[in-house]
């Protein structure tokens, strides 16, 4: 056998560039069956168990989430209701406050009107009293001054002739009366 033929019959050379040798396929197939069988026998149950556990855990989480969602929805409904109640209460309180404020305002205005009227009446009375007092004091002062003036002037005015004239005038008037 020539060298060329020896080189052409290299056991490391396959007869196809794509397919392996038959024996290799057989051994490889058997090995694959053994490996797959081993996997099915030993790994698949574990994998299934893992998946079930995971599924269960996820389901639990889903249930918990649903429960939380429900709770949250209930809470939200409660909050919305509370908000509604608060809004209503706020509106009622505001309405009450407005009513009370209006009543207080009306009452205050009425009281102020009465007080102003009373103050005006009192002030008017005080002014009139002060004016009357001033007028009375003025009259009294005029009377006092007039009295002093008369007392000072009379002696010089009521001389003898005037006195006699007053007496004669009295006699004449009394004599003419009846």
């Amino acid at each position: 056998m020539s060298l060329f033929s020896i080189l052409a019959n290299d056991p490391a050379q396959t007869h196809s560039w794509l397919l392996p040798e038959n024996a290799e396929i057989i051994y490889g197939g058997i090995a694959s069956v053994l490996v797959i069988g081993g996997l099915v026998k030993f790994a698949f149950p574990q994998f299934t168990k893992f998946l079930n556990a995971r599924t269960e855990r996820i389901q639990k989480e889903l249930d918990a989430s649903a429960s939380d969602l429900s709770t949250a929805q209930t809470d939200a409904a409660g909050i919305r209701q509370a908000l509604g109640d608060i809004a209503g209460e706020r509106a009622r309180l505001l309405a009450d406050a407005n009513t009370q404020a209006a009543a207080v305002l009306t009452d205050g205005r009425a009281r102020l009107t009465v007080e102003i009227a009373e103050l005006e009446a009192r002030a008017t009375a005080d002014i009139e009293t002060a004016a009357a007092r001033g007028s009375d004091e003025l009259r009294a002062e005029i009377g006092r001054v007039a009295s002093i003036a008369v007392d000072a002037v009379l002696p010089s005015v009521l001389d003898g002739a005037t006195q006699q004239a007053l007496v004669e005038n009295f006699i004449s008037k009394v004599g003419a009366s009846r």
Partner: protein
Amino acid sequence: MSDNRIEGYARALFEIARAEGTIDEVEDELFRLARTLESSDALRNALTDEKIPVARREGIVEDLLGGKATGTTVQLVSMVVAGGRGRDLPAIIDRLVQRASSAKQLEVAEVRSAVELTADQQTRLAAALANATGKQVNLKVVVDPSVLGGIVATVGDTVIDGSIRTRLDNVKGRL
């Protein structure tokens, strides 16, 4: 003093004066004394003070009237003062004057004037008052400076006031 005592004293003085025949003078002098007593608190107190001895009070009467009034008047006043009735002397005298006037069918006309009235003025005033009141009057003139001017005449309950004092008081009242 009760009215009966005052009346009793007045009647007694009147009868004494009439018996003495000096009723007109005594009446006039007593009337002036009564008005003097009314206007002088000091004199009234001196004649009515029980603490002053009777002799001293009689001496005051003598000093006051001696030489200015008839003896009858002085004795009558001394008698009343000595009897402790000096406080009632004006009332006794007024009653005596009324009695004397009544005896003459006259009404007492008390006239207060700021100045002395002449006899003629008194006569005309008496006639005027008689005309005004319809009564004959026994004129008793009192010089009262407080009248200031004019005359105030009182006949019974009737007062005719023509004094300057009253007119001034009216003006002051109106002021």
